C-alpha cells in the first residue's frame, strides 16, 4: 500500500529544524546559577528572533509633551490608564494593558509610542517595571 507521506518524512529527517533555541539549548538545572554565569561571561544567551518594524510592545511615555487632556482614558478598552489630579499627568498599569495602541492614535501631542520590548514577565503585577509614569 502506498504511503504518500514517506518521501516527505525522509527529507524532513535531514533538514535543520526551524526552532530558534532561545535562551539556551537545554533548560538549565539551576536558573539563578545560569544567569550568574552569563553575567560573569562563562555562558552565552542565544538572542530571540528580531521583531518586525511597527511591532506593538511595551508603551513609552514622554512626560514633558503631555498636556493632561484625558483623551487616552476615554478610549482605553481595559481601563489601564489612571489620571494623577495634582500633576495633570497619567500613570499606565501594564498588567491591565492589552497593547492595542489606541491611545497612541488619539493623543493630540504625540507623547505615547510603542517600543519593541516584549519580555515583560514578572511575579508582582504592581512592580516598578510594570508601571509607566
Amino acid at each position, binding site marked *: 500500500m502506498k504511503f*504518500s507521506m514517506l518521501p*516527505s518524512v525522509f527529507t524532513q529527517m535531514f533538514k535543520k529544524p526551524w526552532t530558534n533555541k532561545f535562551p539556551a539549548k537545554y533548560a538549565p538545572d539551576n536558573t539563578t546559577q545560569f544567569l550568574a554565569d552569563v553575567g560573569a561571561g562563562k555562558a552565552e544567551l542565544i538572542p530571540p528572533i528580531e521583531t518586525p518594524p511597527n*511591532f506593538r510592545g511595551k508603551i513609552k511615555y514622554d512626560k514633558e509633551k503631555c498636556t493632561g487632556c484625558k483623551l487616552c482614558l476615554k*478610549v482605553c478598552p*481595559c481601563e489601564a490608564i489612571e489620571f494623577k489630579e495634582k500633576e495633570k499627568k497619567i500613570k499606565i498599569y501594564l498588567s491591565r494593558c492589552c497593547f*492595542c495602541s*489606541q491611545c497612541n492614535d*488619539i493623543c*493630540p501631542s504625540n507623547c505615547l509610542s510603542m517600543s519593541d520590548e516584549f519580555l515583560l514577565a514578572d511575579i508582582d503585577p504592581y512592580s516598578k517595571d510594570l508601571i509607566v509614569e
Partner: protein
Amino acid sequence: MSQTTKTTYHIPIGPIHPALKEPVYFEFEIDGERIVDVDVKLGHVHRAVEWASRKRNPIQIMYLAERICGICSYCHPAAFTLAVEKAADIQVPERAEYLRVIQAEVERITSHALWAGVAAHEIGFDTVLFLTWEMREKLMDLTEFLCGNRVTKGILTIGGIRRDITSDMVPKVTGVLDYLKDNFERLRKIFLDDKTIKMRAQGAGILTNDNALKLCAVGPTTRASGVKKDVRVGQSYFAYGDLNIDYVTPDTLTGEVNGDVYDRIIQRLLEIKQSIDLIEQCLDKMPKGDITYEPKIAKVLNQLKKAEGEGVGRHEAPRGEVIHYVKLDGNEAPFTWKVRAPTYNNILPWIPMLKGEQIADIPIVAASTDPCMSCTNRVGIVKDGNKYELTKEELHRLSVEKTRRLMR
C-alpha cells in the same frame, strides 16, 4: 432460554469536547456501536460579552469584539463596523475597502490551514498536522509584519483601517503567496489521493441538501451539500462587489455532490485556492487614497455620540456567516448589540449527521463542521457533571484504532 429485549443506553460526552479543545456537552443514545439519537447542550463558555458593551463606547467595543474568539478574531470587528457604519451613515474610502478584503482573505487561509491539521490529527495522521501548521507559521509571520501582532490583530477602526500596505511591503506579501501556491499541490495530493482518508471520510456524516436548507446551516458546511450561500458573492460590502468571485461547491472538482466529510475537505481546499486568487486581484486593482474617513478619533467619537439608527452587518467568516445588530440612540454606549457567531447555526445539523454513525466516527464528523465554541457561547460558568464520561483521550484512541483496522 428467557427472552431478553435489547434496549439503548445513554452515553454523555463532555463538557470536555472530543474533537476540538472547547467545552460542549453531548448525550448519545447508543444501540451497540450505532448512534440512535443525539442531544446537545451549550453554555459552558458563556462570558457576558453583550452585557459588557452597555458601558463602553464603540471604539472600546471593537477590542471587546476581537476577543470573542481567537481563530476568527477579524470577523467579529468586521461585522461590527459594518453595522455601525450602516446605522450612523458613514462612507468608507475606497482604498480602505480593498485593504479590508486582503486582511479577511489572509485570515481565511490561516483558519483553513489550522482546520486541515486538526482534521488530520483526528483521523490519526499526525505528520500532516505538523506539515499544515508549518504552512500556517509563514502566514502568522506575514500577519505580524502587516498588523503588529500574530493573533489579536487590532487593525480595524470605524470608518477605515489603521495600517496601510505600502509599496515596499508588497514583495513580502507576494513571496508568501508564491510559497503557498507551490505547497498547495502537495497538500492536495496528501488529502485527496490518499486511500486511508478516502476510506474514513467517504460516506460518513452526510448532510442532505434539503436538511441544510431547512436547518439554516451556514458556511463551508452548507456549500459542501450543494446549497449556494455565500455573503461575499450575494451582497456588495467591502470591495467584493468589484472582484471576480463565484460560488465554490465540490462539483467543480469531482462532478458530484454527496454532502459527506470528504466533500467538506474538498470544499475547504478549493476555498484556499479561491482566497489566493482574490488577494492577487486586490493587489492589482487597489486605488490610491486615504485609509480612514476621519483621522482624528475624537471627532469620530463625537459624531457617534449624536447618531441615531439601527444597522445589521453581515460578513463571511471562515466558518460561515457572522451577523451583528447594533442600535444607536444618542448616548455614548449603544442601546443594543447582538452577536451571532457562525457555529450557532451549525449545531442543529449535527443531529441528522450523527444518527446512524459509529462511536469512533464522532470526532471526525464533529470536527468536519469546524466548530468554534468560544464564538457560540458568550458568558462563562463551567460546571462539572458527575456522570460516567467518555473522555477526549478515549474517543481519540477509538478513532485512531478504527483507522488502523481499516488499513489492514
